[in-house]
């Protein structure tokens, strides 16, 4: 499907098939989770815990994604990138990150998040470690990894930069390690 029709599909889903709420409670809830974790653990451990939480969400959320979009398997990793940004992010967070920075082998790309509902109102703690070590929105990496794993795409997902840390942009990197062909459910093709 062309990128234009993905857009009209996601607009339609967002308009007609999604129950919408204001983002505040979501942002607050996530914030109090991160703040709690930061009180108990090192930032490295916080990142791990956030990713893990996201991964568990991703494993489940993927079903809603397919049930609501009716999409089938992507034809390529390029296709996957479009679906993630134009449909996945759009239908859950109402944002559409830019897909960019493709690697030569077509197995890595970046998502640039211009807007991130998770970080509204957030300012990292003043101590330098937070700005160097904490990936505040790391839950998103976990969600993507979990979703992709459920469709047999073994990927690494991680943040490269974050405006919260003072970086100019917020960039997530997706790296396809392996398409687990043997685990594709029988009967698909």
């Amino acid at each position, binding site marked *: 499907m062309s990128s234009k029709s993905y857009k009209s599909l996601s607009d339609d889903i967002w308009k007609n098939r999604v129950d919408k709420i*204001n983002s505040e*409670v979501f942002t607050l809830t996530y914030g109090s989770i991160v703040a*709690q974790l930061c009180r108990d653990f090192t930032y490295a451990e916080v990142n791990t815990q956030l990713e893990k939480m996201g991964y568990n*969400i991703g494993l489940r959320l993927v079903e809603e994604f397919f049930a609501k979009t009716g999409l089938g398997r992507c034809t390529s990793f390029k296709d996957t990138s479009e679906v993630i940004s134009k449909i996945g992010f759009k239908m*859950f967070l*109402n944002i559409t990150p830019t897909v960019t920075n493709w690697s030569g082998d077509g197995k890595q790309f970046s998502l640039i998040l211009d807007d991130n509902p998770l970080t509204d109102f957030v300012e990292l703690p003043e101590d330098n470690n937070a700005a160097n070590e904490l990936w505040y929105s790391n839950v998103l990496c976990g969600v993507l990894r979990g979703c992709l794993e459920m469709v047999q795409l073994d990927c690494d997902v991680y943040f490269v930069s974050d405006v919260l840390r003072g970086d100019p942009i917020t960039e997530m990197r997706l790296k396809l390690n392996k398409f687990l062909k043997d685990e594709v459910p029988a009967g698909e093709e």
Partner: protein
Amino acid sequence: MSNQLHQTVVETDVDNDFEKQINVSCLEYLLMELGPLALRITDKLEKYSSSSTRESNGSGNGNDNKQVDDFHYGGVELFQNESLVSNEINNQMLDNFGFQIGKILIEQLIFLKNDGISTKMDEILDIMKIIARDVWKMIYQKQIDNLRTNHRGTFVLIDNSHRLISSMYGPDKHRISGLYLNFSCGVIKGVLNQSAFKANVEADLKSDGSVHYTIVVI
């Protein structure tokens, strides 16, 4: 107190004051993960402290080496771990998540509702109505179904269907649902605390699946 109970009908009043919107599912997944997350944190913290005490007394429990986070994906085997679920740290933590959120939500709601003209709200019944109507709507997309008071500092909020809990089934329902009820109680406490009221809040899951929150103002 049943004879003195006065029933207050909770009115419908939906305000859509905030601007940014997201899919309600995002919040649902997040609230749902609060349980396992708290259990994982507790487990980790216990490991930290038990590894230091173990060194001192020289004896270790073999089970301690089993990493709780190496569970089968989906993450809810954690709920089977009885001692972990009943651990006070989780319940405290979930209560605290709720507390933080309640505190801030009420401040926001008041701010948005009153255009800052008057933020005074001395009647605790008004606060209860805000909890029952607005706060619940923001978190659970539904209002409290019934609000009762004896007008002497005791309030009962009845939620006929708690989204996270009503989907549960089986003998463990009571034990496990406590985690999520602690969160809700925390929210109520947070709102009241920010409104300068101290209260004991207890949640009770009835056999018909409804949840009764009993709030006793101190």
